[in-house]
C-alpha cells in the first residue's frame, strides 16, 4: 500500500444551504488503496460531503480533487472514475443477476466483450453460477449487498464510495462483506466508507469523525483512542459526538 499518493484531496471544502453550513471547511487526504472510514452522527454532514466528493453537488467554497479531477469543472471524469453504493440496497430486483451486472457495466460504457468477461468472472468469484439467471429479488439480503458492491467496482474505479453499505445485515455477512472490501483495497481501489458500526470503524486504515459539519478527529483507530484516552471506538465516537448541535 503506497501511502504517498492522494486520490482524494479536500481543502476547506464547504457547503452552505442558505444560512445553514452543512459542511464547514473540511480538509483531508485519502491515499491510494486506503480504507477510509467517514464517521459522524446523523446530521453531521457526512452525506453532503460525500455528494460533493462524488460530483453530485457543487461546493460553496474550498477545493477538492478526486482521482486528480476537480469537483467544480471535471465532474464528468470524476463520475467515470468512482464507484458508488448506498445504504439503500440498489440493484434492480426485477432483473436477473446477469442483467443487473450487464446493465450497470453498460451504463459505465463497458464493451460487450468486456461485459461478458467481467460478468462471467464476477459470477464465478461470488459463486453465483446457479443464481445467475434468477431475479435479484429472490436472493438473500447478504448476497444482494455483496453483489451490489461487486457491481459498483465492475468498471475498476479509482475510488469506491460506500454509504452505510452494511445496514441491516447480519454479523456473519458483514464480515464477509468486509472481506470483499479488503480484497478491493488490496487491488488498489481506494475505499471511502461511512458506517454507524464502531466495530467496522476498527477495520478501517484511518477514520475521520464529523461533528457539526467539521472534522473533529482524524487518524488511525489506534491513534484516536490514545488521543482521546478511550479504550474503544465507541468511547471515542461518543466523546466527540456528545457536544454536537445538529442532531436528529
Amino acid at each position: 500500500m503506497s501511502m504517498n499518493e492522494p486520490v482524494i484531496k479536500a481543502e476547506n471544502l464547504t457547503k452552505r444551504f442558505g444560512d445553514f453550513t452543512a459542511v464547514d471547511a473540511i480538509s483531508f487526504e485519502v491515499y491510494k488503496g486506503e480504507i477510509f472510514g467517514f464517521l459522524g452522527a446523523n446530521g453531521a454532514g457526512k452525506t453532503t460531503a460525500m455528494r460533493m466528493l462524488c460530483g453530485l453537488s457543487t461546493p460553496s467554497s474550498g477545493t477538492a480533487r478526486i482521482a486528480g479531477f476537480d469537483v467544480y469543472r471535471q465532474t464528468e471524469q470524476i463520475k467515470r472514475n468512482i464507484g458508488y453504493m448506498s445504504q439503500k440496497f440498489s440493484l434492480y430486483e426485477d432483473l436477473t443477476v446477469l442483467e443487473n451486472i450487464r446493465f450497470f457495466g453498460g451504463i459505465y460504457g463497458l464493451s460487450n466483450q468486456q461485459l461478458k468477461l467481467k460478468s462471467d468472472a464476477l459470477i464465478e468469484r461470488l459463486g453465483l453460477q446457479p443464481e445467475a439467471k434468477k431475479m435479484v429479488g429472490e436472493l438473500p439480503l447478504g448476497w444482494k449487498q455483496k453483489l451490489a458492491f461487486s457491481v459498483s467496482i465492475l468498471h475498476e474505479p479509482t475510488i469506491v464510495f460506500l454509504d452505510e453499505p452494511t445496514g441491516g445485515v447480519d454479523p456473519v455477512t458483514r464480515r464477509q462483506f468486509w472481506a470483499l472490501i479488503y480484497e478491493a483495497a488490496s487491488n488498489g481501489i481506494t475505499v471511502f466508507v461511512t458506517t454507524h458500526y464502531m466495530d467496522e470503524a476498527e477495520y478501517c486504515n484511518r477514520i475521520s469523525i464529523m461533528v457539526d459539519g467539521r472534522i473533529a478527529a482524524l487518524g488511525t483507530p489506534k491513534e484516536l483512542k490514545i488521543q482521546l484516552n478511550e479504550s474503544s471506538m465507541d468511547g471515542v465516537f461518543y466523546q466527540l459526538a456528545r457536544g454536537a448541535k445538529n442532531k436528529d
Partner: protein
Amino acid sequence: MKQFITFVKKEFYHVLRDRRTLLILFGMPLAQIVIFGFALTNEVKNARIVIVDHAKDDASRSIIDRIGASNFFEIREDVMDRNRMETAFKEGKIKLAILFPANFQRDLFHQNHAPIQVIADASDPNYATTLTNYVSSIIQDYQTELNETVALPYRITPQLRMLYNPQLKGAPNFVPGVMALVLMLVSVMMTAISIVREKETGTLEILLVSPFKPVWVILSKAVPYLILSLVNVLSIVLMSVFVLQLPVEGSWLLLFAESTLFIVTCLTLGIFISIKTKSQQVAMLISLMGMLLPTMMFSGFMFPIENMPVPLQIISNVVPAKWFYIIVKSIMIKGVGFAAIWKETLILLGIALFFFVISLRSFKIRLE
C-alpha cells in the same frame, strides 16, 4: 448511444415483467373500449316496451308496425290493466308503455285528433327521454304521411341532418375520449411511477453518480413509454375501426403525429410529477387526481364544455386532453387536415414545452 440502448432495454424488462403494469398498459384500453362501446352507451337497443292496444284498428296497427320495424324496441303486446303495468314497471320488466284508446282511428279521422298515451320509466331520465323521443318521432312520421293526402297549408318541416355522425352513435364521441384517458394514464402515471420507484429503491442515486448524464436518464425513461403509448394508440384505433366499425376519416399519419405530440406532453407532465414527489403512492395520487380527473371532466368527453360555467370553461383550456380530444375528433370523425387543427396543435406544443422547461429546471435544482 450504446448506454442509451442498454437503458431502454432495461426499462422494457421492467414493464414486461410486471404483470400489473402490463395489465394497465394493454388490458385497460381494451376494457375501456368494450365498456364504453357496449355497456356505457346512451343508444337505445331492444328496449322492452309493452303496447296496450284497445283500438285494434288500421291506424293503431300501422303505428305498431312502424315501432316494431325500428330496432330500438322489443315489443310485447298485451292488454294490461293499470296494476299489472305498474308492477311490470316496478320490476323493471318494461321501460315504456304505449296505450291506444278504443276508437283511436275513428277519433283521429273524425275529430282530427286522437291521443296516444306514452308512459316511460323515468327513474333513468336520460333513457326515458331518449325512448319517448323515438316513439314521438315514429308517431310524427306516421302523422306526416297521413297529412300528405290532406292538403294542409303552411307546414314547416325541419329537416334535420346530423353531420359526421348521422346515426348519432356513441362511439365517435368516446373513442377520442378513451384515447386521451388511456394515454394520460399510461404516459403520465407510468412514467412518474417508474422514475419515483428508482428514487425509492435508491437506484436513481446510482444512476446519477454514473457517467450517464441525468438528461439521458430522463430521456431513456421516456422513450419506452412513448413507444408503448403509440402501441396503445394503434390498438385503440384498430379496435375502433374493426370492432366498433368507426373508420378513420382523416389521415392516419396526422392522427399518429398528433398522438405523439400529446404523448410527449403527457410524458413531460409525468416527469415533472416524478421530480416533485418522493413516493410511488404520492406520484400515483397526483397523477390520478391531478391529471385523470381533469381529463375526464374538462376534455369535453363526458360533459360538454359549452354548458359549463365560464370559470370552469377557462380552466378547461389548460387541460391538454381537451385539445387532444378536439384534434382526434376532428381527424377521426370530420376527416379534416392539419389546416383545421393547427391552433390546437400549437397549444399542445406550448404546454409540452412549458413543462419540459420547468421539469428540466427543477431537475437541475434537485440535483444540487
